[in-house]
């Protein structure tokens, strides 16, 4: 996944970065298809550590099978400098998921417009929280991208499938924190509304 890591790349993809990238992207599309079927099912999966692991596993099972679905066992430096120590990974994931589940159950507004904003804000909150924990040696952005898509779909919003303004998205995604993510919420509302027109 990245040259700095001692990761085990599936032999058929060795020395072929483009093919590896294409395979990961293919898997990412399949992950979203799977999550959509879960969200629409009679008994959707909970947002919990098992789901987070499985999303990561499905992204990377064919390219990096040794690391797919497994939390990291060493400290890393992520762009935001938020990665937690190894022993804090599982509590961090559990806390993020528990908070999302509790607020979804107890804090939902009644007004339909307010409810949409709430769904988007909470989806961003759990996404940023999980990203900041940085559970995996690599693939955290991609995993949490689909965690958010699942959270959106569970509550009837379409997943994020297009960025009309990549620079604007990156400008609010990277500074977002679990407590301060309103600019990211606004950006996501605009992106989702663009697709819903």
């Amino acid at each position, binding site marked *: 996944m990245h040259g700095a890591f001692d990761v085990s790349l599936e032999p058929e993809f060795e020395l072929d970065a483009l093919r590896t990238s294409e395979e990961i992207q293919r898997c990412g599309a399949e992950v979203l298809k799977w999550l*959509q079927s879960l969200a629409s099912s009679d008994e959707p999966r909970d947002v919990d550590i098992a789901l987070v692991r499985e999303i990561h596993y499905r992204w990377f099972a064919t390219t990096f099978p040794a690391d797919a679905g497994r939390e990291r066992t060493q400290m890393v430096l992520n762009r935001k400098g938020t990665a937690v120590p190894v022993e804090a990974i599982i509590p961090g994931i559990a806390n993020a998921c528990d908070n999302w589940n509790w607020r979804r159950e107890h804090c939902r507004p009644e007004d339909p417009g307010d409810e949409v904003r709430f769904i988007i804000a909470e989806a961003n909150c759990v996404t940023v929280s999980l990203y900041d924990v940085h559970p995996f040696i*690599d*693939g955290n*952005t991609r995993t949490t991208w689909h965690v958010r898509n699942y959270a959106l779909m569970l509550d009837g919003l379409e997943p994020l499938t297009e960025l009309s303004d990549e620079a604007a998205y990156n400008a609010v995604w990277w500074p977002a924190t679990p407590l301060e993510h309103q600019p990211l919420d606004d950006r996501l509302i605009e992106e989702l509304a663009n697709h819903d027109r």
Partner: protein
Amino acid sequence: MRDQTENLLLLAENRRRRMASGRPVFDLTPEQYERSAYWAMRVAQASKSQVAERDDCAAPVAA
């Protein structure tokens, strides 16, 4: 907070339609699955580029 009233009303109305049967129903195309994965990869790549540019990386970098 930016005024998003129009966008929120639009999203709420479409959400109401998707949830009419009690559980969400989506009509996503194969291209939409692919585009979502593509954008996830793009954002991830941006994180790697930024970290790699830093010269104070004592630990492995991750995206």
